[in-house]
């Protein structure tokens, strides 16, 4: 073994994205090389520009002390959502590239099949693990502790470690654009294709380690959230008084605790096969690839509900708020959430009906799958009943919710169709399936997350987002989605297989063209979101909501200033009913200073999360490229950091009662200065976050 090989492992000049085009300048190599190099240089220039800007503005210290090492659940939540948006941008551009390829794919197109394989693999992996998961974890992190009336999660440093590991995984996926090639095995990474025999490159290794990092981080997040909800609720907040978003957060956390381990097991066993020659899933020597399918979907199906439940929670907050009513059927919504969580563990086999089980087994899982439609239907009706005779305002979150309700029902119906094994045999692995799960995940998950982003943004930053650009984005998402994915149902029924780079039957072309048009509208939606953020930041002084309750909402997070102080609540609230803040407003008990203030203990910053982010990224990078010295060093550093953390004793700081009182009195002054606004003026500059109580009382009657 040479020294270079020892230091760089498998890494070499051939790992650069333009190397093939330079060595063998065929037309295909050049086109794919240019695209890959363009993407790689975007990553590199993006990273350099970020570093440069932070240095130029001298913000490194600020970034380190106020954000990266912060263990405040609100800041960690916001950082999660930043990751989600960055990764959304990348994966969405990849989606547009794939749609473009297929629109021109009659007889070939411009992408190589290898490149196309990488695109759908990274698109799926990123959208699930580095867009959807960080988004919902970020939202729960930000909202849930405030909703249950506590000051932080149970394990604030572990929260920061979870963020660090997710960040490391996201970094690894980004690095794979620059060095080497990502897996072509799809987001589910099925062996034996991803075994060393058929995929000897670094691709599956990138996939394995990125997903493992995120999986371990998510499992810790699940533990953290569940313990927080069980142990930290404000006095008087019984389970059946919890806001529905918190209920869905609880069910999602329970799913994370039980469903992330199968993913870790699947990826680690696959890694053992690839690195040490084990035979878990190989073709020969007694390997059994069906074990992988079972393990992966034991994770994969509950994962679907990990993704969807928090979005249901957002809708359950948004719809009553913008209908001016209490939620209809609280108990049935709680039960439906629990039933969905439970059923999610008994349907995993419907992901591989065609892999050789007996008809009886398929039938059992098919029926179990159809049953999930029942609690979901209950939810849809509850939301509709909440809107019934309500005073509905078409705010951006509400528009997303309405789009969701229409489209999700269509997606659900296609799911019931797919749950029938005999039909599934016909459309299995076609674009029909692709249309179905995008129909669940875009209106179901993403619309929910974006609605939540609009809804809670004023809580996080103290000013409202621009409505007009938000509306443009929401409409583009909704109509872009329809145009991009409804044709895929037809294409699937016409027999178009998923993950196919090119085709030779011209009948597909018109549908593909419409889908491309839809994808471009979705891209416009993303651009509108970016413009909205810029415009909103520029106009922030006109849209401030210092009093903290811009939507006349009902849960506890709206009962404090916007943005909330580090410690959330000057005095922990005492809860006597559901919709605690709304009840307080109705009884005139809101905005009353407590009898006395006490010193508050809050956790101090900790660098552990960021240390583990760096060592995690380095260790896995070393594993991908077989740089064993790097792996050893990074693992050692990881263990050392964790042990060092065990010796830290000084981890809390005290915020004196006087400071808390001053903050509180300043806020009360802002509340007193704010003009109460009626719901008609919700989007006007006058909305300083204080709701007109007359109206609230009227609605209560």
């Amino acid at each position: 073994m040479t020294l270079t090989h020892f230091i760089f492992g498998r890494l070499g000049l051939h790992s650069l994205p333009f190397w093939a085009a330079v060595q063998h300048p065929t037309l295909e190599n050049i086109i794919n090389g240019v695209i890959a190099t363009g993407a790689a240089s975007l990553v590199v220039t993006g990273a350099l520009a970020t570093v440069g800007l932070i240095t130029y503005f001298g913000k490194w210290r600020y970034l380190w002390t106020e954000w990266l090492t912060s263990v405040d659940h609100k800041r960690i939540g916001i950082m999660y959502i930043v990751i989600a948006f960055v990764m959304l941008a990348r994966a969405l551009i990849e989606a547009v590239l794939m749609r473009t390829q297929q629109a021109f794919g009659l007889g070939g197109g411009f992408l190589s099949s290898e490149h196309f394989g990488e695109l759908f693999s990274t698109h799926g992996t990123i959208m699930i693990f580095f867009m959807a998961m960080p988004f919902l974890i970020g939202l729960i992190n930000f909202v849930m502790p405030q909703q249950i009336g506590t000051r932080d999660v149970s394990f604030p440093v572990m929260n920061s470690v979870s963020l660090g590991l997710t960040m490391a995984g996201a970094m690894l996926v980004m690095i794979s654009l620059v060095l080497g090639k990502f897996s072509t095995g799809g987001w589910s990474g099925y062996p034996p294709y991803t075994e060393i025999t058929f995929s000897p490159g670094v691709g599956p290794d990138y996939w394995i380690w990125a997903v493992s990092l995120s999986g371990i981080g998510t499992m810790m997040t699940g533990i953290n959230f569940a313990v927080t909800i069980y142990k930290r609720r404000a006095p008087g907040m019984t389970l059946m008084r919890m806001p529905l978003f918190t209920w869905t957060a609880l069910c999602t956390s329970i799913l994370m605790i039980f469903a992330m381990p199968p993913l870790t097991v699947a990826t680690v066993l696959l890694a053992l096969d690839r690195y040490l020659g084990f035979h878990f899933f190989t073709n020969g020597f007694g390997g059994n690839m069906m074990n992988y399918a079972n393990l992966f979907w034991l994770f994969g199906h509950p994962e679907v509900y990990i993704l969807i439940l928090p979005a249901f929670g957002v809708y359950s907050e948004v719809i009553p708020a913008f209908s001016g009513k209490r939620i209809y059927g609280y108990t049935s919504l709680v039960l439906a959430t629990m039933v969905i969580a439970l059923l999610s563990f008994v349907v995993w086999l419907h992901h591989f009906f065609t892999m050789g089980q007996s008809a009886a087994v398929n039938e059992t899982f098919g029926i179990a799958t159809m049953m999930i439609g029942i609690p979901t239907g209950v939810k849809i009706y509850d939301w509709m009943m909440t809107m019934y005779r309500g005073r509905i305002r078409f705010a951006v979150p509400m528009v997303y919710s309405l789009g969701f309700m229409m489209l999700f029902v269509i997606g659900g119906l296609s799911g019931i169709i797919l749950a029938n094994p005999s039909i599934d045999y016909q459309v299995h692995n076609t674009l029909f399936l692709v249309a179905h799960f995008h129909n669940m995940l875009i209106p179901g998950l993403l619309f929910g997350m974006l609605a939540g982003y609009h809804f809670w943004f004023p809580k996080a930053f103290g000013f409202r987002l621009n409505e007009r650009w938000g509306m443009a984005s929401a409409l583009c998402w909704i109509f872009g989605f329809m145009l991009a994915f409804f044709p895929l149902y037809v294409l699937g029924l016409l027999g178009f297989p998923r993950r196919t780079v090119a085709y030779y039957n011209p009948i597909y072309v018109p549908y593909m063209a419409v889908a491309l048009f839809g994808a471009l509208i979705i891209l416009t939606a993303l651009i509108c979101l970016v413009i909205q953020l810029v415009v909103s930041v520029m106009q922030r002084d006109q849209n401030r909501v210092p009093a903290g309750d811009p939507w006349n909402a009902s849960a506890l997070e709206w009962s404090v200033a916007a943005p909330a102080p580090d410690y959330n609540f000057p005095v922990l609230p005492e809860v006597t009913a559901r919709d605690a803040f709304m009840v307080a407003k109705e009884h005139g008990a809101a905005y009353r200073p407590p009898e006395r203030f006490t010193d508050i203990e809050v956790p101090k910053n900790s660098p552990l999360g960021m240390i583990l982010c760096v060592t995690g990224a380095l260790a896995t990078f070393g594993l991908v490229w077989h740089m064993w010295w790097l792996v050893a060093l990074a693992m050692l550093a990881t263990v050392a950091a964790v042990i060092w953390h065990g010796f830290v004793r000084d981890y809390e700081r005290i915020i004196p009662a006087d400071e808390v009182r001053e903050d509180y009195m300043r806020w009360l002054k802002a509340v007193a200065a704010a003009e109460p606004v009626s719901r008609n003026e919700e989007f006007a500059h006058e909305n300083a976050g204080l709701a007109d109580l007359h109206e609230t009382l009227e609605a209560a009657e």
Partner: protein
Amino acid sequence: MSGNTLDNPGFRLRASYHHVNREDEVNFGFWVFLMSDAIIFGLIFATYATMVGATAGGPGPKRLFDIGSVAIQTGALLLSSFAYGMASLALRYRSGRGKVIAWLLVTLLLGFVFLGFEVHDFLTMFAKGGSPDRSGFTSAFFGLVPLHGLHVTTGCIWMVVLIVQMLCYGIDDDVRLGIQRLALFWHFLDIVWIAIFSLVYLGGLA
């Protein structure tokens, strides 16, 4: 305090009023983690069960296992759990730092005996042609049993760290919580080992 609406309504090991009980919270969190870890072991057990016959012409359990050595490992691990129990009692009845450390050292020693015999067994299996790359069966074995061994190793490192912490800080709240959690972990590993002993070794040799 039951019936008082102002009571903290969370799962409690002990009554608490208006204040999050840190001890309950941390230990409960660790229980939840163990639940998650139990799922990992359960899945690998299931994988083993499906692959136990997949020897692909290679050596099977009867060729590879040495029940004598495994019996010693079992004895060492069960005794170590007993020793840990004594350490927990010493902690509970405040018998002093010296006693806690002494019992933890006994536990640690027995842990090392377990690991030593286990590694020796693995090397013997390698020599008999039972390395993990031989067959589905050996893969499943080396996926399961060393995973337990890795947990025991982690437990040993944790124990050393706690002993050093005790020497630095005495028995403060953090050390106390650490010892309580490691106790859960250590006894959990005992239970997993009993499953391995019954399913893998006794089952394989039956």
